[in-house]
């Protein structure tokens, strides 16, 4: 490595502009080497001296299956069991001692804050974490799971701890989306934009569809595609690597009979969805609108967890690296068309990672509504072959707080399957109240 640095220095000095009598000392010059992402490549023969030990890497990412709220496989499962199963999985599968984890951050949205935090702490205990491991929650609505991962990455980078878990949990069987504000401050009436915060998200989807001309047909087509891809991925067994089977019980609503089951398959997917079926659905939010239950994400239950650590630590323990955290960005957008979030967040995250759109090989863009998903893909001119290749939230479900972390698991496992051709991936979502978030990941060198 020293040789390479020395050679770079010698060559750089050939390009210096200022005359100097001594060529031995490095002069400050307006020409300087910029940090090269390519140098941190994990391709081919990894020369250990080439990679940056201070990278934050992901060594494990797992999720539960995602099930329909109130009617699916988890309807009688305590939500802390969901979280406990994935927390346990990331520790067990990597042989990291639970006590070594510096912090756990759980993205979770709808439940009352303090209650949920207690629930998460209990989940950590059930998962075998000692009392010495702290835990907290984070809420940036749809991006909470991704925000949790980014928070842990930031703390690791800052040196607060070396090992952390970013997770997500949402139990929509119990917690519903709030449609009214708790307190009504009279100012809300006066600020024009504040009115938009009160808009039900379905209305923002209609606003977007109208403003940007996304047709009912296009939205239904996106839904068909999402179901098709998710079904194909499930059949091909692709999700087996990332789903942690959860033994639980289910109670028959009619007979009250309790049955033991193991939930290991996403049950929101409708493999036989066709355009004709979807066309029959009535708009859910607005008369003569285009957003229906069929082309919106499904309310669901699920959890996911991602184990992050400094690369140096991963290498010391000889842990295979699933992915490398490269950048994260959040942006604010017009709350009336909050679905545009990814259009602004993705370029911000790319710039932070010093990449461009054409460098990205795979995208996971949350399908909150087909309207915004279609619009974002069109606006960014994304290749459909690279986006949500294994389906998206319309088919899989959108357990709000868990989605971001779930996408990390799905993205990284798919990138691993694709191998060297798939180097950089992006996860992005729009966020209620008008925001967008995006993160860039690099394939690990497993």
């Amino acid at each position, binding site marked *: 490595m020293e*040789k390479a640095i020395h*050679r*770079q220095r*010698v*060559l750089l000095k050939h390009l*210096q502009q200022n005359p*100097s*009598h001594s*060529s031995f000392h490095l002069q400050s010059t307006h020409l300087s080497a910029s940090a090269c992402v390519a140098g941190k490549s994990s391709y081919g023969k990894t020369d250990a001296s080439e990679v940056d030990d201070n990278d934050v890497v992901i060594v494990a990412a797992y999720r539960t299956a995602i099930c329909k709220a109130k009617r699916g496989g988890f309807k009688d499962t305590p939500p802390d069991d969901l979280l406990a199963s994935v927390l346990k999985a990331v520790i067990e599968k990597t042989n990291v001692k639970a006590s070594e984890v510096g912090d756990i951050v759980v993205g979770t949205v709808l439940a009352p804050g303090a209650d949920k935090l207690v629930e998460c702490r209990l989940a950590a205990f059930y998962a075998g974490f000692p009392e010495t491991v702290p835990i907290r929650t984070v809420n940036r609505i749809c991006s909470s799971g991704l925000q949790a991962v980014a928070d842990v990455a930031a703390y690791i980078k800052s040196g607060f701890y070396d090992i952390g878990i970013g997770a997500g949990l949402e139990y929509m069987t119990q917690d519903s989306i709030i449609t009214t504000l708790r307190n009504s401050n009279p100012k809300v009436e006066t600020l024009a934009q504040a009115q938009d915060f009160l808009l039900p998200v379905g209305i923002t989807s209609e606003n977007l569809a109208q403003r940007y001309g996304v047709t009912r047909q296009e939205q239904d087509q996106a839904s068909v595609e999402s179901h098709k891809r998710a079904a194909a991925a499930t059949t091909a067994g692709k999700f087996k690597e990332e789903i942690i089977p959860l033994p639980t019980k289910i109670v028959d609503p009619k007979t009250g009979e309790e049955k033991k089951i193991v939930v290991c398959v996403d049950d929101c997917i409708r493999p036989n969805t066709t355009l004709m079926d979807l066309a029959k659905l009535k708009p859910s939010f607005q008369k003569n609108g285009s957003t229906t239950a069929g082309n919106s994400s499904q309310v669901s239950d699920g959890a996911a967890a991602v184990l992050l650590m400094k690369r140096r630590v991963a290498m010391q323990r000889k842990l295979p690296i699933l992915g490398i955290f490269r950048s994260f960005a959040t942006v604010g957008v017009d709350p009336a068309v909050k679905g545009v979030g990814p259009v602004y967040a993705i370029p911000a995250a790319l710039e932070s990672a010093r990449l461009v759109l054409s460098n990205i090989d795979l995208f996971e863009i949350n399908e909150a509504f087909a309207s915004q998903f279609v619009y974002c893909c069109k606006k960014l001119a994304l290749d459909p072959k690279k986006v949500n290749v294994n389906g998206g939230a319309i088919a899989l479900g959108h357990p709000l707080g868990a989605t971001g972390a779930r996408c990390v698991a799905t993205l990284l496992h798919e990138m691993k399957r694709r191998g060297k051709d798939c180097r950089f991936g992006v996860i992005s979502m729009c966020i209620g109240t008008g925001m967008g978030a995006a993160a860039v990941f690099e394939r690990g060198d497993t």
Partner: protein
Amino acid sequence: MPVFKTPFNGYSVKFSPFYEDRLAVATAQNFGILGNGRLHVLSLSPNPSQPFTEIAAYDTADGVYDVAWSESHDSLLVAAVADGSVKLYDTALPPTSNPIRSLREHTREVHSADYNPLRRDSFLTSSWDDTVKLWTLDRPSSLRTFKEHSYCVYSAVWNPRHADVFASASGDCTLRVWDVREPSSTMVFPPHELEVLTCDWNKYDDCIIATASVDKSIKVWDVRSFRVPIAVMNGHGYAVRKVRFSPHVRNLMVSCSYDMTVCVWDFMVEDALVSRYDHHTEFAVGVDMSVLVEGLMASTGWDELVYVWQHGTDPRAP
């Protein structure tokens, strides 16, 4: 005009003194910063659909920064390798027998190799370890080490008329002229304020030498009166990497630069720039003029391309 694509970044190209249609190309992976190297021996053919045939290719563990053809054997080459070794190759022998020798004495990157055209039995290598070494083909160790420079020695070239005289260009901003029979350099002067990257003797006047530098200029000197240069040629946009005097025309010389161009100059003329070729899309780092075919030139660069063309024509024309 023939173009050859090398898998690695080009560093140097040299025509064979024996065969008009043969040249050697030194290349290094990842711009010579980290990785392997490869030495190509190419043959030009009149067949337009396959202008180049690769006679041999030798892989090295580190980049090859320069190559020199032997003047005594038509199949022998000397490679200057970035890992500090000097390797000898014989294209007449099977690949498994090559390199026939690996000389490890330099403690840093070997940047240039030059074969003595008069004595034909010895060659020089210059290195980033601040030294120049003199070798013969039959000895496993160097005959002499010339240690006076205080920074990388980028080039050491034999005088075409005086068999024991050579010049060395160094990053310590000096040019030194040596006689191998003398214990120390016979002359040292600072041709440029910045690093001197290359030098070459005029083929018709044994006292005239050209130097080129990080300061983007090329200067031509008479070593008998080195206070003032005979000519100063500006025109390159970045540091000049290599200069070569023409073997056929007294006043003509060619240069290649980090500004990605290859330029031909007539240093006796007020407006010295004769031609500018901008065929390379990365740093142009190697250039040579054929001794056997008048006007034939070759260049290579970090864009992994080797061009061979006749002066006055477009290198990129098919």
